[in-house]
């Protein structure tokens, strides 16, 4: 008995390890959160004042003018509209279309199932690369077209595999009952399969939603019309092409105060861009993790 008790107690080296481990973990959390905090604090500070630097923990001259400027710059508002539209429409079409194909392929009685699978698996290993893809999108007439955000992202074979493995686990009795009632396969998919598959639909919708929200590249290479560029593309242009001066004059035209700088608007835009994800993330984290695990095990 005495021996067992002693073993459960921590030795000196274990004690040191536990405390060092705790400190390292706290450090990792701090350096993860702090850069985000820094942006938030600076975006809430007077722009001219922030140029002096030194704002680390709390705004020195608190103001909401930067956020006001963001929502009064027409280009930014339009871009947010595009992002919201492409995230909502793109995610719904993606989930519906991929799940539909996945349901057909998940059915063991589907004639030619192995052929369909093979065609898909090949796409996991080989692709045409950037330039042929670019030429295809051009030939399809998707340049400067809102559908460029929707149609080319409508399907994803990795997501299909996640769907298929989920559908396989569903009880067959409901499908059979629906069939006896005279429902066709498409109606079975709509009326029986979709309501039963909400957990996997949530997971895939979250992945695709984050992808749609964060993607900037399609807007950079396929879209010239500023009215069709998503907010991430807008931010990309501000950050990478340092067109921030132009942004400043845009903003200055709409807002009377002189306390807003291009930098402070940039920070506020970054916060507004990231906020929706930050807000939903803690509640939906488990779906993300689940999806990541299914995807990596099956893929």
């Amino acid at each position, binding site marked *: 008995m005495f021996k067992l008790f002693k073993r459960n107690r921590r030795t000196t080296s*274990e004690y040191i*390890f*536990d405390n060092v481990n*705790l400190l*390292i*973990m706290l450090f990792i*959390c701090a*350096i*993860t959160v702090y*850069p*985000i905090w*820094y942006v938030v604090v*600076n975006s809430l500070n007077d722009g001219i004042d922030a140029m002096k630097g030194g704002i680390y923990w709390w705004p020195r001259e608190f103001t909401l003018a930067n956020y006001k400027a963001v929502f009064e710059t027409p280009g930014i508002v339009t871009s947010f509209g595009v992002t919201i539209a492409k995230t909502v429409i793109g995610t719904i079409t993606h989930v519906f*279309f991929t799940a*539909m*194909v996945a*349901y057909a392929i998940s*059915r063991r009685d*589907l*004639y*030619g199932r192995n052929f*369909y699978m093979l*065609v*898909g698996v090949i796409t996991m290993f080989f*692709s*045409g*690369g*950037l*330039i*042929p*893809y670019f*030429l*295809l999108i051009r030939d*399809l007439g998707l340049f400067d077209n809102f559908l460029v955000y929707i149609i080319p992202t409508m*399907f994803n074979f990795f997501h299909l595999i996640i769907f298929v493995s989920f559908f396989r686990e569903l009880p067959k009795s409901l499908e059979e009952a629906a069939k006896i009632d005279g429902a066709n*396969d*498409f109606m079975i998919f709509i009326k029986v399969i979709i309501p039963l598959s909400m957990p996997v639909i949530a997971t895939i919708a979250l992945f695709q939603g984050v992808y749609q*929200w*964060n*993607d*900037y*590249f399609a807007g950079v*290479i396929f879209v010239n019309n500023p009215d069709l560029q998503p907010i991430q593309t807008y*931010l*990309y242009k501000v*950050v*990478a092409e340092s067109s921030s001066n132009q942004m400043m004059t845009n903003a200055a035209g709409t807002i009377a105060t002189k306390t807003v700088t291009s*930098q402070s608007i*940039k*920070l506020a835009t*970054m916060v507004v*861009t*990231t906020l929706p*994800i930050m807000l939903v993330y803690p509640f939906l*984290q488990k779906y*993300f*993790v689940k999806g*990541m*695990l299914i995807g*990596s095990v099956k893929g």
Partner: protein
Amino acid sequence: MEVKIQQPVEQPINDTITETSTKKEKFKKIKKTIISQKYLQFMALLGLVWMFIFNYIPMYGLIIAFKEYSIIRTISEAPWVGLMQFKEFLQDENFWIVLKNTLGISMIKLIIGFPLPIIFALMLNELTSMKFKKAVQTISYLPHFISWVVLGGILTTWLADIGVINDILLGLGLISERTNFLAEPDNFWAIVILSDIWKELGWSAIIYLAAIAGVSPELYESSTIDGANRFQKMWHVTLPSIRPTITILFILAVSGVLNSNFDQILILRNSLNESASNVIDIYVYQMGLQNARYSYATAVGLLKAIIAFILLLSANKITKKLNGTSLF
């Protein structure tokens, strides 16, 4: 149709009649199956059409790597030039720069960035408070969901001459005057690698954490009876148990060595750090989309894909020989 025409000619031989008739029957049966599942077939077919357009047409488009394609001609009209585009790339002065940057960044990322999530997962697993562990996990996954554009915005702010990094280094007396770090090629690799680790450390650890959670508790119990302490358990039980996971992810990491993080580098590069930031993917983007040298850029991309595929196969073979785990 052919079956029908042949039938009368081969009539004398009895065997063939039954064979063709069973073939016919089989065909009829297939037709019947397909018709009975017409909705299902249509649903699958839509996916097939999508893949044909968005995956297979670009694969066909790869042939322009062996042609001199220009915007005024169609792909099939463009003249064949054989391996000219590939030769041109190998002789180009940018070839060595691009190769050095791509391999340099990827190799360091592999050496430092690959083991870190494993170590992080092991350390997380040793935390005694479950609540604290959950909190650390939640926080560490967060940066994965921030886009590279926003992170690029944070980095350009932090690394600017009036930014936080300069404040810290000046305060510590490590530098004597303010510099814009992104304007200097010497710092670029470090910035890319560290920011990538910052963003993905927690998220990459998920899969290892799941693998660790799957280790049988009996193994730990029996090692406790054998008198193993926590470090010995970590080394002799946990690590060997998650070795298959590590191996698979290592194979994937090796095959991705030529993939630089395009989204990341596109936003962090500028004309001043070009000598350190020009990697294969960026080069393809610049040559193909900005200079409209479609055939040349496609050839560069294709060469990269071929080497990546060879790397995947060899990493798979080597790990299969060494410890019996492989991807396929």
